[in-house]
């Protein structure tokens, strides 16, 4: 049985975002060492969506994600050691080194899998929700995708089926306006994404994806409805990607967006915004923050140490497990 969720602790919400931020900064810093030899898509600047959405669901609920999955995976409770080891291609990685950054999984916390084919996991989430519905479970399934994904036919096929069978699935569109380096206005006509989803016959909401409490509140409402038979829910959260599409760096040099735009985007920082909001209500906030920072740095150091000390797979490990 999935119990009704308790009101969310603002410090816990903050901690989730801060932890994702610091982990990705650490990954970015070490990426140049060229030992994490796989494509890596950072979600720095977009942490509030992962944190707010995940705080609205239970561990038993299921989650699917895409190429930019670190935040989703970590917010759902995925093992940090498993993720870092995976990036280093070690046997102890969550995919045993077969996946890398774009393929994360942790079934112990309901993180069903992330893959990089645009739209690839959206129908899988609908299928998992279909299974829950057929089994009469109270579980909901959630899937993250970007604004570019909304252009894929398979997403609309998935929305259609989810609405037809009133499935307990929550579609979360992270709209950062970019598909790689191409703006949405070159790819889509000027109409709201969530309104189009609504036309498929489901509840749809839009909100500020950099405001973690807004994300949480919208998602809580949606989860409650989906869990109680109201069918699929579609959430569109606006946000901004700070760094390059793929890789650890900033990308001002590419000139596809102005440095003023990046600066203004970074001023709308979800972590800093929430920090200023809650620091007033906690008397010893500075002390709390320094404890958090230390705890996170220790955890990161230990995850890297774990990965470095983990056994490396060999060529012979590449065979097998082709067929179940």
């Amino acid at each position, binding site marked *: 049985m999935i119990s009704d969720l308790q009101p969310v602790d603002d410090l816990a919400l903050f901690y989730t975002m801060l932890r994702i931020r610091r982990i990705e900064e650490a990954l970015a810093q070490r990426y140049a060492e060229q030992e994490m030899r796989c494509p890596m898509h950072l979600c720095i600047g977009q942490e509030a969506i992962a944190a707010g959405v995940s705080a609205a669901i239970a561990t038993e609920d299921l989650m699917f994600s895409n190429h930019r999955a670190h935040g989703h995976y970590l917010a759902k409770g995925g093992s940090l050691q498993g993720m870092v080891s995976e990036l280093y291609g070690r046997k102890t990685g969550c995919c045993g080194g077969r996946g890398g950054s774009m393929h994360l999984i942790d079934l112990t916390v309901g993180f069903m899998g992330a893959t990089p084919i645009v739209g690839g996991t959206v129908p899988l989430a609908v299928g998992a929700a279909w299974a829950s519905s057929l089994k009469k479970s109270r579980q909901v399934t959630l899937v993250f995708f970007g604004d570019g994904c909304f252009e894929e036919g398979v997403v609309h*096929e998935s929305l259609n089926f989810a609405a037809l069978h009133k499935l307990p699935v929550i579609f979360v569109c992270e709209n950062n306006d970019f598909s790689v380096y191409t703006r949405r206005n070159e790819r889509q006509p000027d109409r709201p994404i969530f309104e189009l989803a609504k036309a498929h016959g489901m509840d749809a909401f839009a909100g500020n994806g950099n405001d973690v409490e807004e994300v949480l509140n919208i998602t809580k409402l949606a989860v409650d409805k989906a869990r109680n038979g109201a069918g699929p829910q579609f959430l569109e959260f606006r946000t901004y990607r700070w760094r390059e599409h793929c890789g650890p760096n900033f990308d001002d040099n590419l000139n596809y967006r102005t440095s003023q735009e990046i600066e203004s985007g970074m001023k709308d920082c979800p972590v800093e915004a929430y920090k200023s909001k809650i620091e007033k209500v906690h008397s010893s906030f500075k002390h709390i923050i320094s404890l958090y920072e230390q705890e996170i740095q220790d955890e990161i150091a230990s995850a890297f140490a774990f990965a470095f000390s983990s056994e490396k797979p060999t060529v012979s490990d590449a065979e097998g497990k082709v067929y179940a």
Partner: protein
Amino acid sequence: MHNIEGRDLCFAEAIREALDQAMQHDSRIILIGEGVPDPKAIFNTTEGLREKYGITRVFDMPLAENGLTGICVGAALAGMRPVMVHQRVDFALLAMDQLVNNAAKWHYMFDGKASVPFVVRMIVGRGWGQGPQHSQSLQAMFAQVSGLKVIMPMSAHDAKGMLISAIEDEGPVLMIEHRWLHHVKDLVPENYYRVPLDQAKVLHEGNAVTVAAFSYMALESLAAAKALKSVMGVDIEVLDMRSIRPLDIAAVIKSLRKTGRLIVADTASRTGSIAGELIAQVVETEFHTLKAPPVRIASPDYPTPTSHFMAERYYPTPQTIADAVVKIIGLETDSENYHQLLCALQDNRPHDIPNRDFAGPF
């Protein structure tokens, strides 16, 4: 054909019985496809199942092949065992992303932590002007993808047993059915039984030539074998390959060591066919056993034309197979025997329908 207890059932009835018994056996099995519960019931292969198992296990489907393939993969990951049907394999091409990127890879890329028990039935059309987009034999294309199992049973007996094995398999299995086999009868046991997904079967024993045949071409090869034996006294060994991936190369080699000659009969176009792959694998290890170059019997390298005037020579026949046998052994064609063979294999039926009492649907 089989020395076993059973009743005469046609291939389509055998599939229906397999689905029925499997669904009875395991409540996780769900069935979905365009037309599954409609009055024609996918050539009667799903007849009555909606009535028996209800609307929560037997589904019609939106016209969204890729989306629904992904939805079935997701349902499989979450504990169901979906069976999907395409009335023509050509429509499954819309679902290549989900089949190739997700269904086939999931188990491997997540290090065996999850698996996708999922069966997709795909039907290959032939005749009555099915044309370029309703009669493609794409088994080699699917078989190229590691992680997919691909089967093509020929007999009703194997259709039932292999479909049951496919449904029980923990990974994705594509079952490609030739439309002209659906009405072919065979002895089919009443019980719930399995036929392995990786083994060829000897349909006709012989020492002269090995004919490794796929799907409908195994039936055509059997007709050729009977005529060759009765008219010319030539015994060929016909193998019904049954499985495309994996290929039972060991069975071919075993037969080849007896005969020294290999003909492969495929339902597909020649270039890139599974017949070519089979020959490549045999030649790599058994070159020394071959007394003659191996032969591919396949359709030409152009799409299937619709007009029956143009399609007349598109499909190889028992005569094509018999001629290949005569040539590879080096028998005289300027002989009374060969003339009698031609008479025995002469077929005056229209070439674009499977037999006289078959009136569709195609």
